[in-house]
């Protein structure tokens, strides 16, 4: 019997290969290795979107003068800013910090989404899976309703409250998600996340509904998400969290690949699956909490960016993680630019733009990759 069914060694292979590929053993053997040009493309994309969002704004500033203003900050290059006091303040205190903030938030959400998808082996996992959004929403609402006025201090209490809320929600998820005997399974964590998110959202809605319209509008404005910032304080606030979290997730990129063969096999080649999962989830969650605390809830970035990269660059997290960082940053900076430009002077909520731009693009990529596959 066994002799009849013989999947041939020779059936696969040779005819599919072109000679040109065979002549390039490195590329041929390591098709998903992260290459310098990938990084270069990502950096270029990010720099272009940053530049565009500094050059373009609802208030017209001559691009040449803005460029001169940017060049004037480069040491040793003696260019004089062509802008007046208002233009300079606009470029350096509003446009530049909000572009950089967009980069940080976009990078964080994209890389956290990719990491969650790896850890939970679920393509629909997003950075808000474990209750970060609901927790941050409650924190922000409490700060808006009961806190001191946002303009009363140099640093608004809102991001801090949102961060505390997000961390509290995820801590609750972790506590409840631990089964009585044995470690947390991804499934029980996700279910605990759903319960915690529902509870926090209920409390948030209860508090928000009891307020007058002004506070309510501020709460919903925050929830819809946005990157408008005044000065560099929010950037300075979240940059350390994003940097540490991104570094940890980058370091775990191979571990995410390893998790896909199951815990036991991963241990056999030296990967502590439980420990890796915990480290990744904690890093991604802290980073997301920090990002959300200043940007509100911006959806879709954490799903669309990693999946697009997956479709274009393959399923290995060795590529997905670093490229999500770069392209996530660029994507959100561009989305923010579009949010201000499309119906100028009216601003479209950023979350609407990310979905509006990202979803069709993602579908195109999906169709293309199906055809090729």
């Amino acid at each position: 019997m066994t002799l009849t069914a013989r999947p041939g060694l020779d059936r696969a292979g040779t005819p599919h290969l072109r000679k040109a590929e065979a002549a390039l053993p490195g590329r041929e053997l390591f098709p998903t290795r992260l290459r310098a040009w990938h990084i270069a493309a990502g950096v270029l994309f990010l720099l272009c979107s940053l530049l565009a969002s500094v050059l373009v704004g609802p208030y017209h500033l001559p691009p040449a003068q803005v460029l001169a203003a940017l060049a004037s900050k480069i040491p040793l290059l003696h260019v004089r800013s062509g802008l007046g006091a208002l233009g300079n303040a606009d470029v350096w205190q509003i446009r530049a910090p909000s572009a950089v903030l967009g980069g940080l938030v976009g990078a964080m959400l994209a890389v956290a989404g990719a990491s969650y998808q790896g850890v939970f082996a679920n393509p629909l996992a997003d950075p808000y899976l474990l209750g970060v959004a609901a927790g941050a929403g409650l924190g922000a609402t409490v700060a808006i309703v009961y806190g001191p006025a946002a303009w009363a201090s140099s640093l608004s209490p809102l991001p801090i409250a949102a961060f505390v809320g997000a961390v509290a929600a995820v801590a609750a998820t972790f506590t409840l998600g631990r089964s009585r005997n044995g470690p947390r399974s991804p499934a029980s964590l996700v279910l605990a996340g759903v319960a915690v998110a529902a509870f926090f959202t209920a409390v948030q809605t209860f508090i928000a509904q009891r307020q007058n319209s002004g506070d309510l509008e501020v709460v919903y404005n925050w929830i819809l998400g946005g990157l408008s910032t005044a000065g560099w304080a929010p950037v300075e606030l979240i940059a350390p969290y994003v940097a540490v979290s991104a570094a940890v997730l980058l370091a775990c990129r191979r571990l995410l690949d390893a998790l896909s063969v199951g815990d036991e096999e991963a241990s056999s080649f030296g990967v502590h699956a439980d420990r890796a999962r915990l480290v990744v989830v904690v890093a991604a969650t802290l980073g997301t909490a920090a990002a959300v605390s200043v940007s509100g809830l911006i959806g879709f970035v954490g799903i669309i960016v990693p999946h697009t990269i997956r479709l274009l660059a393959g399923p290995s997290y060795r590529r997905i993680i670093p490229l999500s960082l770069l392209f996530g940053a660029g994507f959100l900076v561009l989305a923010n630019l579009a949010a201000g430009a499309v119906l100028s002077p009216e601003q479209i909520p950023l979350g609407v733009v990310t979905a509006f731009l990202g979803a069709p693009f993602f579908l195109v990529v999906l169709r293309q990759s199906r055809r090729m596959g």
Partner: protein
Amino acid sequence: MKRAWAKAVIAIAVSVATAAALSPFSTPEASASPPARATSETFPVTITSGSGKVTLTAQPTRILCLSASATQMLYSMGAGKQVVGVDKYSTWPPGTPRTKFTGFEKNAEDYLYLHPDLVIFAFSEGTLVKQLQLLHIPVLVLPPANNFAGVYNQVNELGLATGHIAAAKRLDTSLASYVAASVRKAGKDGRGASYYIELSPDYYTATSQTFIGAEFSLFGMRDIADAAGRGTAYPQISAEYLLKADPDYVFLADTVCCHETPAIFSHRPAFSLLSAVKQHHVFGVNDSVASEWGPHTIEEFVGFLARVLASTTRK
């Protein structure tokens, strides 16, 4: 936010608050803090508003007003010529330079094409105010007033900020005397009468701690929501609560948003049992009476209330 605003108000006008709170329609003349000179020579001025201290070095000539109530105040005191833009909710007076702005924009850069030299908000989440401060554009935040003292105070602040101190005082005086005249006209008809002010068909209402509540209080009316307003000035009650409280008067301030009318209200289940329905004491009013505290809105509503109370009888 509210707490900080309260602190700010106390800081500017302790005397106004104490004097005027006791007697809501006393003119605030005695307590006005600024010197009574009303020209551009008074600049620079420093004003403490909901956004902190702001210094105006010269009389503002390009005001962007993103509060419908403040728009009414500015135009009523003759500062309209200095206004270059008002928000989309500023419906009075007609002929103002209305914009699409709501005062909740994401980016203060949106306002720059108007080149404003003073921006006035009713609400602010802080980012807009901070952005304008970084752009060196003065900002005034005049949050919703809770009583008449707050209104007079905001009028005075705007007078100081725009260089119309005397006109602002005159506006206060005329508003106060109009209100006093209305109360006299209503006589004792309102004393002790209970009322329900509806903000939305799902029974959101306002207690007497709000500005509209203060207007009813002028006539000695009693808010049925006060017992429900624990911790919030805008509680949500229920149909059952309403039936039990059985107010003498019902005012529907959801005629614009939700197209409520006295007829629709009367046909809600069991509402035919309400005394107000039986006596036809259900009145539709513009939604803005509950959300604005400008002199025009106040005069309209207080005048309307006086007419209603004078023309109806209670059993």
